[in-house]
């Protein structure tokens, strides 16, 4: 950039304090001169600017790659892993249970597997051993990570959609509609959320369990669905408040007034001013919602209100591990580390996003 400018500068005739002015000095500027005058930095947008700031933030970038890595592992590993998360090894129908598969320590083999290895067969190692039912623990942790991430993501999506809709309606409509919606928001906001979540999850688990039988949703399990319902019922309020507040405050901004004074139409104002200024705040708070949803899911799993067995989630793995904690503490430590890593990186990345895209909020 600077070198280019120097080059340009040399090609432009030196006309600093000329001794005498000729007719050429009064001629209209030619294309080259014009180009020199309008030389600008490469065009940038608020988005590119934010990305640039985000990339400079080392902590946020490391967190970002940790999340990407964990997500990729959770998605890809189950495809080629030789064990299934629900397969109880050593249990073949019609034969007695081979108990040597149960409670294997990490990287050890069962008696049957050892004889197979001696026979020259290759047996895939149990990286984290097996659990009390003879299930490969590594694949259960990977699957649990997948479930936890998915729950966090979809719960945040539900919160986003509902909060955005209600908040936008409330902010635009104003008047009585706004008043009623905001009072409802106030009340839901002051409800002790966790207690309500436990209560709803307890009841919904039984209320919708039977009606799901035989549908696609049954595969997901009644507990996860009730978790989503709980999120849809209770957690949209802060998003709705945020969106409403944004819309109300943005509408009053001078640049919106200026745009309107310059003759901008409503759709232009929404597209060019309201949405770009809202988006960063909304994206950031959605990003920060994911770890809190993962937290809630693991908490409920721990109380036995999370995913349905045999499906694992990080919370249910940790809670199952409590039973054999004296002999197999690593079964608790592994999911504990994974869940803390996920939540920590998501939080740090969310903070980085906030710092990069919304310096106003930083405080």
């Amino acid at each position: 950039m600077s070198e280019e400018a120097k080059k340009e500068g040399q090609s432009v005739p030196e006309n600093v304090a000329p001794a005498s002015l000729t007719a050429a000095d009064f001629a209209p500027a030619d294309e080259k001169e014009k180009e020199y005058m309008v030389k600008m930095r490469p065009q940038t947008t608020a988005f590119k600017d934010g990305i640039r700031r985000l990339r400079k933030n080392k902590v946020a970038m490391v967190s970002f790659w940790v999340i990407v890595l964990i997500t990729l592992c959770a998605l890809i590993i189950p495809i080629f892993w030789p064990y299934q998360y629900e397969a109880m090894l050593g249990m073949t129908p019609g034969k007695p249970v081979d108990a040597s598969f149960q409670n294997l320590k990490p990287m050890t083999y069962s008696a049957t597997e050892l004889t197979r290895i001696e026979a020259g067969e290759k047996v895939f190692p149990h990286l984290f051993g097996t659990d009390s039912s003879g299930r490969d623990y590594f694949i259960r942790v990977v699957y649990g990570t997948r479930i936890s991430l998915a729950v966090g993501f979809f719960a945040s999506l539900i919160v986003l959609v509902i909060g955005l809709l209600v908040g936008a309606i409330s902010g635009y409509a104003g008047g009585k509609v706004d008043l009623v919606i905001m009072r409802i928001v106030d009340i839901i906001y002051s409800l002790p959320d966790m207690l309500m979540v436990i209560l709803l999850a307890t009841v919904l688990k039984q209320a919708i369990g039977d009606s799901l039988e035989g549908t696609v949703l049954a595969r997901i399990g009644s507990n996860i669905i009730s978790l989503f319902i709980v999120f849809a019922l209770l957690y949209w309020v802060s998003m709705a408040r945020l969106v409403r507040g944004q819309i109300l405050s943005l509408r009053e901004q001078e640049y919106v007034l200026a745009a309107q004074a310059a003759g901008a139409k409503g759709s232009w104002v929404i597209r060019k001013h309201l949405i770009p200024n809202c988006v960063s705040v909304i994206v950031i708070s959605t990003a920060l919602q994911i770890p809190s949803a993962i937290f809630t899911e693991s908490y409920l799993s721990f109380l036995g209100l999370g995913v349905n067995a045999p499906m694992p989630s990080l919370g249910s793995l940790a809670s199952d591990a409590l039973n054999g904690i004296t002999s197999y503490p690593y079964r608790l430590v592994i999911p504990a580390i994974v869940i803390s890593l996920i939540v920590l990186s998501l939080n740090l990345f969310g903070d980085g996003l906030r710092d990069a895209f919304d310096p106003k909020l930083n405080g």
Partner: protein
Amino acid sequence: MNPNMLKYIIKRIILAIFTVWVVITVTFFIMHAVPGGPFTSEKAVSPAVQKAMEAKYGLDKPLMSQYFTYLTDVIQFKFGPSLKQRGRMVIDIIFDGMKTSAKLGVIAAFLALIIGIVLGSFAALLRNSFLDRLIMVITTAFVSMPSFIMGSLLLVAFAIKTHIFPANGAASGGLVLPIITLMLYPMSYITRLTRSSMLDVLGQDYIRTARAKGVSGGRIIFGHALKNALIPVITYFGPMLAYIVTGSLVVEQIFAVPGIGRAYVSSITNRDYTMIMGTTIVLASLIVIMNLVSDILYKVVDPRITLE
């Protein structure tokens, strides 16, 4: 006290009462939406016995009349008998559990406040030093760890591997680990809150004036800055209690503390409906009241805060 403040306080109290009413109502109707009712899990109950049971608990009356009976009972703290622990009233179980849980919660809250404020002040005072960085890294890690994981890890480290503390919460000294578990998250949160609000306060003019007058660093922090820096911490009282209440559910489970949290969790697994309803209402009211107190305190302490 100005009339604006009074208006605000009255408004908040009304909202709080309304919230408690919503909790009671929601709890009641949710519990009645459960298919089958409370007696379906009993083994081999003849229709006649079931009828008699329902009559005894007033379940044969129309829903609305049940609701109003329930509402008047709840106001007098009559939650009825526990369905699973025969012969015990729900309110007695709650009261018994509260004795232990309150001790646990209050100690955890106080420790979290004291340690959090001290750590936060030091971090702000020594901004960008090694100690500050260390405090921030540790508190960030604690904030990212669910309470049940923290509790389980502490249990493994201090009770099972090393036997420093008993694993059973009912034993003597058994409350140490549960208290630490419950304390770490609010402590970390308060540390971060104090640090950022302290940094904010330290940048203000009156602090510079004090510095210019030659006041020592320690006096500036504890004599001038802390009072104002603590105002945002007040807003955390409500959420902290909510955290401690929900945290105690799992912590009491992990360490086998005979408190209300464990009673609540076992009532969920046993489907002890009257117990679930009673405990939810009591705990929820506690949280709502604490939120109310911290909101009002926040406005009263700092007259600069504008009222809506």
